[in-house]
């Protein structure tokens, strides 16, 4: 029995050894070394182009197949059921009244029974499709990207398509996922190890330089761990020391994307577990601003620590996400005014993900962190564009809320996102009653206003 297995055993061992060596070498040469030096072979871009061609073909096949079988295709944005127009309460009610049959133009009546149409229509419109809740779930795609998670029309259409999908599955889970997981562990491990080492050095120029290099290198490895293909625009506007960098928030990956191109001081709450270990070792190498859970509630304390940090010009620019929560990258929601009260230059950054290759949005009510990362690593790639916008500062006599909205509008415009006034916190909380009272006030003004006009004339 032993003779029978021995030669095969040896052969197997040799084969395994060789493939392992080849694997590690190619990993090193093609991925880790370029990450250290910040260069790129362009492999990822080639991959992206190939994938796009495949997706186009897949969508065409899907549409053709659907037509042949007479199945209605579900298209998320067409077939608008209710035609919405953005007008104010007063305009709309006047419109409704004006088109009444027996009205003469002079008598402005105070109340019409038809006024109720405005509220009823608005109510039903919101029930049908509202602007807010659709920002808290993944964006729906027009074309199919061979991932069942983003497919709403999936039925058996053709053998070729299914084979392609199966092949894609194999590649993503069998080849790409293990590769990415290895890289991720390497990146994070190196980060923790090297920053702890650097922490032993005395404070000075060398320490800052080394810490910069180490941070950049590890983040670049993490970028490759996600196969993130990032295009940076307008790098001349990159944030400088003593400033605050604000960006729209889609997922925790935003941090990795921004930090692989520049060095920032992070702001956040100290977590336990692995995150906590990473946070604690990072702060040894360069000053980040981490808060204990109890300190987060104290707004003055937070503001003071942030101002102290920006006043010190040797420290890195702070990275903040003023929305406070993850939004699905189709819109920008209300910016919390805290970071805009500090009174220093603000560097806005717009991040827009291309949803065709993988959905980067973290729906924290649906997936936990680990689940989310696994989904990220098993999609095709993360493709995004980063725009560095020119710096803005608060003008004379401008209050923080107004400034925040100005910055938000600039980010929304550049990223091609919808600019909303709604608070991202509505993901979990209810609307304040003041909104309803606002509507009531507006309507009453209409009724009373006309009364005053009449009594005056």
């Amino acid at each position: 029995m032993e003779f029978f297995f021995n030669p095969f055993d040896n052969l197997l061992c040799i084969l395994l050894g060789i493939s392992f060596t080849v694997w590690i070498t190619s990993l090193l040469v093609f991925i880790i070394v370029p990450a250290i030096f910040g260069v790129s072979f362009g492999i990822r871009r080639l991959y992206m182009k190939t994938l796009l061609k495949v997706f186009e073909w897949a969508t065409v096949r899907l549409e053709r197949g659907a037509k042949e079988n007479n199945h209605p295709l579900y298209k998320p944005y067409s077939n608008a059921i209710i035609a919405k127009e953005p007008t104010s309460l007063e305009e709309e009610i006047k419109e409704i009244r004006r088109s009444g049959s027996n009205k003469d133009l002079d008598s402005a009546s105070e109340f019409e029974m038809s006024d109720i149409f405005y509220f009823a229509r608005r109510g039903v419109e919101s029930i049908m499709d509202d602007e807010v809740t659709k920002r808290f779930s993944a964006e729906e795609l027009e074309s199919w990207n061979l991932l069942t998670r983003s497919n709403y029309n999936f039925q058996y259409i053709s053998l070729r398509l299914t084979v392609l999908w199966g092949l894609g599955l194999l590649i993503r889970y069998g080849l790409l996922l293990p590769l990415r997981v290895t890289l991720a562990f390497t990146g994070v491990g190196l980060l923790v190890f090297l920053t702890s080492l650097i922490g032993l050095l005395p404070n000075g120029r060398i320490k800052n330089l080394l810490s910069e290099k180490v941070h950049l290198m590890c983040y670049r490895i993490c970028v490759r761990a996600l196969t993130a293909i990032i295009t940076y625009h307008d790098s001349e506007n990159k944030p400088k020391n003593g400033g605050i960098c604000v960006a729209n928030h889609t997922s925790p990956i935003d941090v990795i994307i921004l930090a692989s191109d520049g060095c920032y001081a992070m702001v956040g709450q100290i977590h336990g577990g692995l995150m906590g270990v990473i946070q604690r070792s990072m702060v040894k190498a360069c000053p980040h601003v981490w808060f204990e859970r109890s300190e987060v509630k104290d707004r003055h304390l937070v503001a003071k620590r942030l101002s102290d940090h920006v006043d010190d010009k040797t420290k890195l620019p702070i990275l903040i996400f003023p929305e406070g929560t993850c939004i699905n990258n189709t819109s920008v929601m209300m910016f919390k005014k805290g970071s805009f009260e500090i009174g220093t230059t603000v560097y806005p950054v717009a991040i827009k993900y291309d949803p065709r290759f993988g959905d980067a949005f973290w729906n924290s009510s649906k997936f936990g962190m680990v689940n989310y990362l696994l989904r990220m690593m098993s999609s095709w790639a993360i493709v995004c564009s980063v725009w560095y916008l020119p710096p803005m500062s608060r003008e004379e006599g401008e209050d923080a809320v107004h400034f925040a909205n100005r910055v938000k509008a600039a980010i929304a415009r550049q990223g091609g996102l919808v600019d909303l006034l709604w608070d991202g916190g509505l993901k979990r909380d209810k609307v304040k009653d003041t909104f309803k009272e606002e509507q009531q006030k507006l309507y009453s003004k209409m009724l009373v206003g006309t009364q005053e006009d009449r009594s005056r004339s």
Partner: protein
Amino acid sequence: TGPRCPTTRRSRELQIWVKPNCFLALVTLPFVSEVRRLDKRFKKLDLDDSGELSVKEFMSLPELQQNPLVQRVIDIFDKDGNGEVDFSEFIEGVLQFSVKGTKEQRLHFAFRIYDLDNDGFISNGELFLTLKTMVGKNLEDVQLQQLVDKTILSADTDRDGRVSFQEFCKVSQTNGVL
């Protein structure tokens, strides 16, 4: 009145159970995709997967919470009065306001908002209460009562002290805005 449709109609993909005497019998291909979209929306709103929408689930929509008449709108959707809106009630309610709904349906919907006890007439008290929800604390009760009295006076052509559906339609005849 209107075409009769079979008691239940089940589509392979859509799984809608539809009550009799409803206008959904006029199903055509583009219409099916609208219903499918509504189905998706319904499932999204149904947070506890109970198959029916409660008031609480409607109230999870921020834009609806700021509408002072939201409770009345939901009450009208809830045809059988069990406090929850099931899928066929949902479809019927929403489609009345869509491009597929008729002016008559919309007028009826608006009338129902005023007619709190659903007796087919809008009384002085009902109009007052509805107006009160629309303006909140911003107008005095006395002012409000004056408006109500004036409105009923001008709308009530048969002088019975309340507004019937026909009188309502005449008063709020709008051309094409709905």
